[in-house]
């Protein structure tokens, strides 16, 4: 296939993004909510396109860019997330009242960045994809300009993000220097056998840079603040897709480019993952803001995803794929509820969720299932993925890590249950009415719920897919 046809998805996405931007400028202000539908429609088309590439295994531009099932898997994930976020944000964006076209356009740009990250076969593409995603998120995070918190989150993200990019870049430069190449597939060859101190340093810096992106402790500290401050749809997208994208790139980088340093990075990742699950879960306990709680919970989830890397096996990678998917949908479900709730009440405080089950059984149910899925309770997808993750690490003999992970899952159950308790136990406030949800939100909620349930009850298709994708990384 030619390069252009292989890049169809990216090109289509770029065209969509730019088109949205342009249309946003052309269309009169009062008709701009249609852009959301357009964006959704476009994304769905792109998603449909990705289906054509499910089994393609090609590289273009001398290994610069890789189209393989792995990247396609992630692209589909990003697109799905983007579709759901854009659907669920119709109302939210309408309430913003300004710059509606740009919002969707930026979201699509961010998606494009993520796709590049997943497909990058070269450090430079990887870096550009990363920055495209990150810088877009800088803007999106600060999107609610008249909200101080949003601006603050924006500036925090910019400064911390830039610093982490710098250190990542420093690491990339060292790896480039030592290996003499930026093509990920060739770095392993270029690296000296036996750990060169400089390689090690580069590896550590890269790990730190990506650790920041996926918010692994102790590089996670930005995320709760940014998650809380950012507009909720952005938080949702940031929490789910950008983290998944970070993992997509990190796995490829570590497994394909740095296998010679495997003994070192596995240890580091192990410590990071342990710290992450502990910190994320512990600090989530006292939270009172639902977004912040979800932020800490997603920190913890990142820790679980890192387990898959610790395992350093096909199973581990497959588990990462599986868990990313579940994580995306579970978090999206939760965040969609948060968005809808915010739209109705203007609050993100957990205590205001009192009696939600009476006011909107659907919202409460989706929140319940999403949180339980994140906690790893069957028959939800989260259980299956955690099961795979633990299997993967126990397979490698890290049984203590499995204990830690499960123990921390219990802690997570604790704070998830607090939310559930508030929703289900309390009586709604006196003057409250049942919440009527827009169709778009309902559709999102049902979609996330169904995915969590379906892959929890019948995980076989996704498992097979994830395993076959992961086997590409470990041909042995």
């Amino acid at each position, binding site marked *: 296939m030619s390069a252009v046809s292989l890049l169809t998805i990216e090109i289509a996405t770029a065209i969509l993004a730019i088109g949205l931007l342009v249309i946003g400028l052309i269309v009169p202000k009062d008709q701009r909510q249609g852009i959301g539908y357009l964006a959704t429609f476009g994304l769905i088309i792109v998603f449909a396109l990705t289906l054509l590439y499910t089994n393609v295994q090609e590289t273009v531009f001398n290994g610069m860019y890789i189209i393989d099932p792995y990247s396609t898997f992630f692209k589909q994930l990003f697109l799905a997330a983007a579709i759901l976020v854009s659907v669920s944000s119709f109302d939210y964006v309408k309430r913003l009242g300004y710059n509606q076209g740009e919002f969707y356009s930026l979201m699509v740009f961010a998606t494009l960045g993520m796709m590049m990250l997943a497909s990058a076969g070269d450090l430079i593409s990887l870096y550009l994809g990363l920055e495209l995603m990150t810088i877009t998120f800088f803007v999106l995070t600060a999107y609610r300009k008249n909200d101080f918190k949003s601006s603050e989150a924006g500036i925090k993200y910019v400064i911390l993000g830039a610093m982490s990019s710098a250190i990542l870049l420093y690491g990339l430069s060292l790896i480039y220097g030592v290996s003499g190449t930026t093509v990920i597939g060739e770095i392993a060859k270029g690296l000296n056998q036996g750990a060169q101190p400089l390689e090690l340093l580069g590896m550590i810096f890269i790990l730190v840079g990506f650790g920041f992106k996926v918010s692994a402790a102790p590089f996670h500290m930005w995320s709760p603040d940014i998650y809380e401050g950012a507009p909720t749809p952005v938080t949702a997208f940031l929490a789910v897709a950008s983290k998944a994208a970070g993992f997509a790139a990190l796995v490829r980088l570590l497994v394909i480019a740095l296998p010679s340093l495997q003994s070192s990075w596995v240890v580091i990742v192990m410590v990071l993952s342990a710290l992450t699950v502990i910190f994320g879960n512990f600090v989530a306990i006292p939270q009172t803001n639902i977004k912040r709680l979800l932020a800490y919970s997603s920190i913890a989830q990142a820790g679980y995803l890192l387990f898959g890397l610790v395992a350093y096996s096909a199973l581990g990678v497959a588990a990462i794929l599986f868990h990313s998917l579940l994580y995306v949908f579970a978090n999206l479900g939760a965040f969609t509820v948060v968005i809808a709730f915010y739209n109705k009440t203007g609050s993100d405080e957990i205590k205001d969720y009192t009696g939600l*089950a009476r006011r909107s059984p659907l919202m409460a149910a989706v929140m319940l299932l999403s949180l*339980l899925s994140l906690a790893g*309770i*069957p*028959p939800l997808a989260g*259980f299956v993925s955690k*099961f*795979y993750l*633990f*299997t993967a690490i*126990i*397979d490698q003999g890290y*049984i203590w890590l*499995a*204990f830690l992970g*499960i*123990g921390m*899952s*219990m802690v997570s*159950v*604790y704070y998830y*249950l607090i939310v*559930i*308790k508030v929703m*289900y*136990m309390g009586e709604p406030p006196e003057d409250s009415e049942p919440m009527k949800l827009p169709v778009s939100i309902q559709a999102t909620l049902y979609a996330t719920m169904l995915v969590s349930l379906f892959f929890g009850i*019948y*995980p*076989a298709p996704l*498992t*097979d897919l994830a*395993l076959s994708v992961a086997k590409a990384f470990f041909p042995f």
Partner: protein
Amino acid sequence: MTFPIMTTIVLAPIIGALIIMFIPEKEDQIIKITAAAATFVSLVLAIFAFLNYDTKVGGLQFLQDIPWVEAFGITYSVGVDGISLPLVLLTAIVIFTGVFASWDMHNRVKEFFITLLVLVAGVFGVFVSRDLFFFYLFFEVAVIPMYLLIAIWGSTRKEYSAMKLTLYLLVGSAFALIGIIAMFLYAAQPEHLGIRTFDIAQLSLVNYDIAFQKFIFFLFMVGFGFLVPMWPLHTWSPDGHVAAPTATSMLHAGVLMKLGGYGLIRAGIFIFPEGAKFWAPLIAVLCIVNVVYGAMVAMRQKDLKFVIGYSSVSHMGYVLLGIASLNTLSINGAVAQMFAHGIMTALFFSLVGNIYHKAHTRTISEFGGLAHQMPRVAAGFVIAGLASLGLPGLNNFVAEFLIFVGSFSVDKVLFGWLHFRVLSILAILGVVITAVYVLRVVQFTFFGPRNPKWDHLEDAKGIELVPVVILIATLLLFGLFPQPLIGMINTGVVPLVEKINAAAQVGGIF
């Protein structure tokens, strides 16, 4: 293709829950009838299975296999043997009666029955699963509904208790999960089974390394010990019992705790007989603590449900003793005791629920002479109490008798100084203590002069009596004619004991 009877038993409550989802909330009568119908289907099928199980053939019957995740060897495989079928029947009876015990529920009826039915589907699932993955999965399915049921419809420190129960159960299951995974991986190694499978029968064929067995059995012991509950992992259970609404208490004490014993037998002893032999002394000692300590604590409780809660701790100690004795009789007794205790405690809770629903208190000292106002409840309570203290003619007696006989025949010295028979004797002493606290409760609650304060209480009547009658009938039926039950259990226990006897000596104790 034969009729998938076990699957239907599991699915009936789920389908019931789905139907209820579409019934408007205000039609609570229809909701209740639907729930009763759904559980009735399970009950009928369970009875059908019980009657049609071929004890001459034994082994696993009513099988069904559907490959689920082939990459991991996960198969949806169900089937029951002599050990699990009685427990399925138990679950069916308890939930069916539980629905009737909840007939007076008026608060958020729809959600209540949906949650209850999901919960019971999970419990059914555990008992019918032959695949450890599904075993675990179904167990966890049962936990969260339990939380909701207690947290929303409960009483007395319900939030604390619900959380405590949930976390304890999950922590317990976590131990078991790690054990299951480790075992799965071990068996999947080419030099052992070479295939990935969670099938219990297949996993039991592997020759596990002794050290590995010890480790994994330890995990199972702790994990299932949480559920049983084994001292000192038990404190969730009285709190949970007390806080839970009636039907939940019934199901919780009646069935959920049995998952632990069942798991220990099925996943623990059956697969790791050497590990079981190694750890049995510890279980034996702890279970005696359960029995005696639980009974002593029960004696000092002021809340009716707490008494029953601690009595469950005490009674489950017998189950553990049966398991720890590792011989045919004792394990037969352990399974029978699980069944009997389930029925008995469900009866207790349905009656206490009845009282609480009317009197809005469960504090024993506030009662007295309640037999005047509620003679039927009093009679039921006395019968439950008598079952609890192991009166002949009721099912518990047979079970406890078998456990005692079985454990008594163990001629071993633990730790170099403690003869096993000493433990058995202490356990029998537990029966005496049980008599003391049960009779005290009966006396202080039901006997004594008429208390005009409670004159407004009505005796149980009509539909409230359904659970009482069914449960008492079951207790009597299997108490007077235990052969069908014990004979069936025995078909499941015999292969288990053959495995135990074939296993090597470990630790010099068993």
